[in-house]
Every structure is written in C-alpha cells, then in structure tokens.
C-alpha cells in the first residue's frame, strides 16, 4: 500500500448486534450451536421490499452493511465497489445445483442461477447505488477481504479524488456446513460463543457469517474513523513470526510502535498456536485482542476485525470480553490485525487513528 486509505464510514452485520447504532462490544451475544447465523437487522428499513424479495442473505447483508457505512460517511454513492467473498452466494448456488439434479437439467429457475455467482453482492450494491464504475470481487478464500483492501489501496492511488466502497461478505448456506462437518472443520466439543480460548483443547471452528463494508478515500475528513496504512497477504508460510516481522520492517516499524494487536484465535487447537507464537514472540508486552471468539469463523471475518479495530480507536477502550491477556493499552493509536485460517491465507492489516 503506497498511501494510507482513510475510512469514513463502517457498517457491519455479524452474529453480534454490530448493526445496532452505538454498539460498543461490551454486551456480547452468547450462542451454544454450530454453525451460527448472523443477526438479521430490519432489512426493509434500508432496502426496498421489491428489491429485497429476490436477495439471498449475502446480498441482504452486503447491501445493508454498505448502507450503514454510507450513512456514517454521509455519502449517497461512491465511484467504485470492491468486495471480497470466500464462497459467494452459497444458498443460491445450493438451490441451483439442487434444481439441476431434481429436474434433470431442465426447467431451471432463473433467480438462483443468476445469483449463484460470487460477484452478485458487489453487483447488487452497485445497482442499488447506481454506481457504474470499477466493480471487482476477490474470491481467494480467507484472503479475499485483505485482497479487496489492497486493491482499494491501488485503485485510490490511481484515482486520488475517488471514493470507494470496500467490503467482505460470506453466508452459511443450508447444506454446505454439512460438507464442512464431513471435512472435519467444525467444532463439536463445547461449541459456544464466546468461545473459550485459554482452555481450548478441541479441534474445529465455529462457523458463522457476516458482512462488513467501509467507505474509503485518500482524503481525511472531520468524520474519518481511522486510516489503513498497510496490509499484506501470504497464502502459506512455515514461519508466521518471520512473515509479520518482514511486514513491520517494510513499513519501518517495531513492535513497540503498535498499541494493540488483534489476533484471530478461534478455539481450534490445531491452528491457534500460530497466534500464540506470534503474540508471545513479537508482541508480548502489548494488549492482545480477540475477535473470532465472538464473531465465529468465516472467510471474510477480517472485515469484522477491521470494523472492530475502528470502533476501538474511536472509543479508546478495549472491552474486557475482547482482551485476551489482561494488558491494558497506554493509548490506542495503532492496531495491527493478524489472521489466518486453517494454517493458510495469512493476512495483516495495520490501522491507525487519524489526527
């Protein structure tokens, strides 16, 4: 990222009531199930009923979250829409494939077919805003959101006077979680939210869904929530500490230049050691903030982490439920987000308070 991008509005739908105005992550919604569907806001309050009736959950969540971000930024429209999604519109993909099988390749309903593509959420947002500009969807699993963020940085470097709507969305679908179950991805032993992390001794993750969207540009305003100053992705690494170290060196930073680190612990004993190694080796003296133990796991949950980081920069406090190591920050100006999924798709986002 050559120049910082300033975030002026942030909207999120998740398994926590993040869509509610003024939500501060102090009261965390508890669940004892796996997978966990997102909290549904009153979609009709922001999406016309005639448009809403044909939208699957991805599209509803994406459009609603993007409307929240636009409202907060005081914007009516944008110049470009850039999204990330790991698995796209799963429910319509499932319906389409099921109809193909049930009807022996005949009499296929058009709606699930049209809406089974990964870029449907970005397209629906652009249609609802009348935005005919750059429209891109990144679909590289758990790096999809970070890739969209990096592309937003490139786009804004080339179009410094433009505004971008950037986000990530993933839905659960009805049947796909059963495949995750067969693949051994899901947690069985005590599948609860908030997921206990310190005492975690079982494999598997708590699958969830959500959408987080941001209005970004290269110009700060009086309403700017924060700025993303750097980001990076890496599909695989044998040494996550070296990956994070290289990132810090590239931006001329030491661990002490950061006030808190957001780590993607999700309670899966097979992969959480990556975070404890990075946390204890590089950031032992810093507050460690968790997010997947309250949001669950999905490919674009890094978007929810960015939403959380921006809110924490605003409120200058870390709620007890999110603080993993008991270290309180001296101040909250610079937060590093580090996440990976099942040992791959490592991503870093560095966000800083503006002004």
């Amino acid at each position, binding site marked *: 990222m050559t120049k910082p991008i300033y975030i002026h509005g942030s909207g999120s739908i998740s398994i926590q009531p993040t869509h509610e105005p003024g939500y501060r992550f102090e009261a965390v919604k508890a669940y004892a199930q796996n997978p966990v569907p997102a909290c549904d806001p009153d979609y009709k309050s922001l999406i016309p*009923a*005639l448009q*809403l*009736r*044909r939208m699957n959950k991805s599209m509803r969540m994406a459009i609603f979250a993007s409307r929240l971000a636009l409202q907060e930024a005081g914007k009516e429209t944008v110049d470009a829409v850039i999204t990330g999604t790991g698995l796209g519109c799963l429910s319509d993909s499932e319906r389409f494939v099921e109809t193909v099988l049930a*009807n022996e390749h005949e*009499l*296929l*309903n*058009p*709606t699930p077919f*049209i809406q089974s593509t990964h870029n449907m959420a970005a397209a629906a947002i652009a249609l609802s805003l009348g935005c005919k500009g750059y429209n891109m969807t990144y679909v590289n699993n758990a790096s999809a959101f970070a890739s969209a963020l990096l592309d937003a940085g490139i786009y804004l470097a080339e179009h410094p006077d433009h505004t971008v709507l950037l986000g990530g969305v993933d839905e659960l679908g009805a049947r796909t979680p059963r495949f995750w179950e067969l693949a051994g991805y899901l947690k069985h032993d005590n599948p609860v939210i908030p997921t206990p992390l310190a005492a975690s001794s079982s494999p598997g993750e708590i699958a969830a869904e959500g959408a987080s969207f941001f209005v970004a540009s290269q110009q700060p305003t009086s309403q700017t929530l924060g700025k993303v100053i750097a980001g990076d992705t890496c599909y695989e690494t044998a040494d996550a500490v070296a990956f994070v170290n290289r990132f810090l060196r590239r931006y001329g930073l030491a661990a002490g230049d950061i006030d808190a680190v957001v780590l993607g612990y999700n309670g899966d004993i097979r992969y959480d050691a990556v975070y404890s190694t990075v946390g204890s080796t590089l950031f032992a003296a810093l507050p460690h903030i968790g997010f997947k133990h309250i949001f669950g796991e999905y490919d674009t949950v890094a978007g929810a982490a960015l939403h959380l980081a921006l809110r924490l920069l605003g409120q200058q406090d870390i709620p007890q439920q999110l603080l993993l190591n008991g270290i309180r920050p001296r101040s909250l100006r610079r937060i590093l987000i580090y996440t990976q999924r099942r040992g791959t798709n490592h991503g870093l986002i560095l966000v800083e308070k503006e002004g």
Partner: protein
Amino acid sequence: MSELTQELKAKIITQLNLEDLTVDDLDDNTPLFGDGLGLDSIDALELIVMLDKGYGIKLADPKEGRKVFETIQTMADFIEANRK
C-alpha cells in the same frame, strides 16, 4: 376457476418471494407487471417455469407471454384452456 386463481396467487407469492403479500392482497385483475404488482423480466421467466412445472404448459412464443401474464385471471384462463 376461483380455486385455480387462489392456487395461482399462492404459487406466485411463494415462487417470487412476495413476502409482504397474502393471497387476499392480490386481485384477480390487478396487472402483474408495470404499475400493478411491479414484476419484472426475471419474474416473467419464473412464471414460464411455473407454468411448465405446475401445469405442463410450455410457452413457446415469448410474445404470447405478454397477454398470458397480464393478470392472475388471464393466467388462469390460459391454464384452463391449455392444461394437459
């Protein structure tokens, strides 16, 4: 015929996800497209699939659809005249 129009209304509400409507809200003679119910071209495709799946009627000529899908009543009349 009244039974068929009621059945069609229920099917249209389900197939097209008209979540806010009930069978009682739909009049037999309300235009389905334009200023009436406000359906669009994707809905027209859904209705063609519904005719084929539900009543065994293939609508070969798209121009025919404009008349057939004018109202619930015109759909019911067409189904009565053509169903197998």
